[in-house]
């Protein structure tokens, strides 16, 4: 709930601030709450301090929750994998096998080459993103309030509302796309793909003139792949989280608005179940498609 001492905008800003740990230069931050005389590694007391850390900051909450959820995913599936036999499957194994068959089918549907990496990659992306998105359904104040009790002032529990998380995965996928493009087509083939299309001519001189135009077009479309992957997921989750926060503000505006807000939150949460699954699925499917494109000559 928005505390008495917080205005709505402060409440929102508070919810959108990560728990940042980084190298903070000397200075006076957070309206005099955090005064740093010697530059050093420490927690940021507010968004302003986190910004001052620059690239050296690391979001502890994002790292923590993403690792916890990832480990949860790996633990469950490792358990299923250890129990996996050709015999009659139990409950957990059934679930894991169902998920794996679903992923396997998606990969078979969109990926036509042979690559041992793509299916496990897709499984990791789908389940991990799904779990991280799922944190969005935890009421926005529960975990921040609990962490406030143990003295942690900032806690953003949905890692996918942090562009670092989504870009981290998207860049991972992008590196794979580049790696397989070069591995399958060779450096020449990859460069050719970037420069000799979509415009081409039978006249070599005209072809040379086309090279910069082609390169600009193809390079933009190449870069757009990871950027769109990351921003789509980030945007969806950030917007969803924002709406939850806005709904939460209604709780402090009287009984009627509070009840109405509760109804809205329920509705949005139910709708959000669709979004979090869909976004995880889209990220996975586009990853498969991009990797498939990397394996094919145009």
């Amino acid at each position, binding site marked *: 709930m928005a505390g008495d001492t917080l205005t709505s905008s402060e409440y929102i800003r508070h919810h959108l601030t*990560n728990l*940042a740990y*980084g190298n903070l230069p000397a200075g006076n931050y957070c309206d005099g709450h955090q005064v740093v005389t010697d530059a050093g590694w420490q927690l940021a007391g507010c968004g302003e301090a*986190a*910004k001052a*850390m*620059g*690239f*050296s*900051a*690391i*979001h502890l909450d*994002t*790292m923590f929750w*993403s*690792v916890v959820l*990832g480990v949860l*995913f*790996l633990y469950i*599936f*490792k358990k*299923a*994998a*250890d129990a*996996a*036999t*050709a*015999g009659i*499957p139990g409950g957990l194994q059934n679930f*894991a*096998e169902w998920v*794996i*068959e679903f992923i*396997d089918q998606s990969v078979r549907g969109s990926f036509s080459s042979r690559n*041992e*990496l793509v*299916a*496990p*990659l897709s*499984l*990791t992306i789908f389940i*991990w993103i799904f779990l991280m998105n799922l944190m969005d359904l935890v009421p926005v104040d529960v975990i921040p309030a609990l962490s406030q009790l143990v003295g942690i002032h900032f806690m953003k529990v949905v*890692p996918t509302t*942090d*562009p*670092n*998380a989504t*870009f*981290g*995965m998207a*860049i*991972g996928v992008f590196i794979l796309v580049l790696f397989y493009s070069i591995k399958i087509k060779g450096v020449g083939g990859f460069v050719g793909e970037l420069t000799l299309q979509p415009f081409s001519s039978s006249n070599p001189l005209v072809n040379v003139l086309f090279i910069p135009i082609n390169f600009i077009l193809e390079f933009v479309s190449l870069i757009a792949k990871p950027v769109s992957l990351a921003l789509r997921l980030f945007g969806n989750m950030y917007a969803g989280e924002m709406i939850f926060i806005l709904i939460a503000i209604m709780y402090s505006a009287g009984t009627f608005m509070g009840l109405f807000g509760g109804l809205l939150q329920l509705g949005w949460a139910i709708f959000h179940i669709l979004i979090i699954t869909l976004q995880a699925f889209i990220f996975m499917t586009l990853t498969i498609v991009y990797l498939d494109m990397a394996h094919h000559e145009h």
Partner: protein
Amino acid sequence: MNINLTLIGQLLTFVVFVWFTMKYVWTPITGALEERRKSIADGLAAGERGQHEQELAKERAKQVLHDAKGQASDILAQAQKRAAEIVDEAKTNARQEGDRILTAARSEIEQETNRAREQLREKVAALAIAGAEKILRKEINAEAHQDIVNSLAKEI
């Protein structure tokens, strides 16, 4: 939107998770699935084979039953034939034996009859002679009526 060290951290985490999934999750589970698929396929094939074999066995049993029935009826026919033969043989033997016994009995009867007739004739002759003697002794001279006595003896 602060892009910072978290990006690198997330990237590394992602790589580790993918590696772990690939090595310890995906391979064993898909392996188990593949194995199960194979064992199910084997089971179905075995079931089909069993069914086929059962059909063959049924066919064979039918054949055996048919053969056995045929044999049994053959044996029965033979036995009946043999029985008829035996009866016929026995009948023939009995008839022959009967005939033989009958013939023997007849010839014996005939012999007995002849013998009895012979004895009777002798007894009557002797009786006649004795009667004649008594008569003749009383009235007539034996010598004078010798002829008559002889002719009488001859007539008997």
